[in-house]
């Protein structure tokens, strides 16, 4: 049997005060994901490693980390895709906590600022009817519904938030995920909170700070396009400002 190849892995260890990368040698396996690597380290090499995951199938959005400098959902990222081709070895991997969020410990970041911004962007459904009202009829083919559909598969992983350079430079910026969520609601015919939402995304930290560079869309694991959603918000907020929004 061939000698098993080894993945040279460095993992960021530390807390809010600071930290450093620690090296681990992890046996390379077929169909191995980055999350498998982290789990191997925690279960076999150092039980004190802190990280976060839940579903392991790309649904919960809790496992995002920086992998070789790029934000990724680690449970669905195959090592073979990212580790490079170091001849004779199993490649190299650098794993760090998600960018643009405060570190709690090791690979775990505090997601509170990320979700606070969802609330600040009015990313909350505001019913316009009571539960007694008949079910709203929404044409599946209508442009508004199509726009909402394009954005609703978000898993709240914060990969886009970590990828966004405007978030990095401006802590008040609501960020791609919150604005994408607001855009799906702007296109929800049943929602009754539109004026508040338009105000919220027109504020100082709002959609107008986006430079439309598209890092969020490039890295979103679900292939959503927050850049396009934010462009839609810019259009609607301008219409509202000029009194053209019905």
């Amino acid at each position, binding site marked *: 049997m061939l000698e098993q190849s080894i993945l040279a892995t460095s993992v960021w260890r530390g807390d809010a005060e600071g930290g450093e990368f620690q090296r681990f040698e992890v046996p390379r396996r077929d169909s191995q994901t980055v999350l498998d690597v982290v789990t191997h380290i925690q279960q076999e090499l150092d039980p004190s490693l802190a990280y976060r995951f839940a579903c392991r199938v790309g649904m919960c959005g809790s496992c995002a980390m920086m992998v070789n400098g790029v934000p990724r959902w680690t449970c669905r990222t195959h090592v073979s895709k990212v580790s490079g081709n170091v001849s004779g070895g199993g490649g190299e991997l650098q794993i760090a906590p998600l960018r643009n969020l405060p570190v709690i410990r090791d690979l775990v970041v505090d997601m509170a600022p990320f979700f606070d911004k969802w609330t600040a962007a009015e990313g909350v459904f505001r019913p316009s009817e009571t539960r007694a009202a008949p079910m709203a009829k929404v044409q599946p083919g209508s442009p508004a519904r199509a726009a909402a559909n394009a954005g609703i598969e978000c898993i709240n992983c914060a990969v886009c938030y970590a990828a966004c350079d405007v978030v990095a430079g401006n802590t008040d910026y609501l960020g791609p995920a919150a604005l994408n969520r607001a855009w799906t609601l702007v296109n929800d015919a049943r929602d009754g909170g539109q004026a508040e939402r338009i105000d919220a995304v027109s504020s100082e930290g709002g959609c107008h700070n986006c430079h439309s560079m598209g890092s969020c869309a490039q890295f979103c694991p679900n292939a959503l396009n927050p850049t396009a959603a934010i462009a839609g918000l*810019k259009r609607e907020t301008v219409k*509202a*400002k000029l009194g053209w929004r019905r």
Partner: protein
Amino acid sequence: MLDVRLYLLQRLTALMMIPLVLGHLVVMVYAVQGGLTAAEILSRTQGSLVWGGFYGAFVLAASIHGAIGLRAISAEVLGLRGVGLTALSWGVFLTLLLLGVRAVYAVTAGGPA
């Protein structure tokens, strides 16, 4: 640090500047045919309401546009916020406006009407 008002202003001033830049370039290319002298330029601009209005609008649009752009950059790169950011934005706007208006005044005021 742009809200919808500043965003709109920046787009509107950009829109304004497109024809102004083109007009400026076209006249420049046309005017240098057969040599260029200060006297020739001044003979065209002095006492001209049209050129005064043209470059006055240009200066105003450029001052607003530039100030908003630098505001966003200084917020993101230098981390400026609040009063400092407001002061910088207005400072840039007023400085550009003053310099521009002085220049427009210098080439359009006086001379043969």
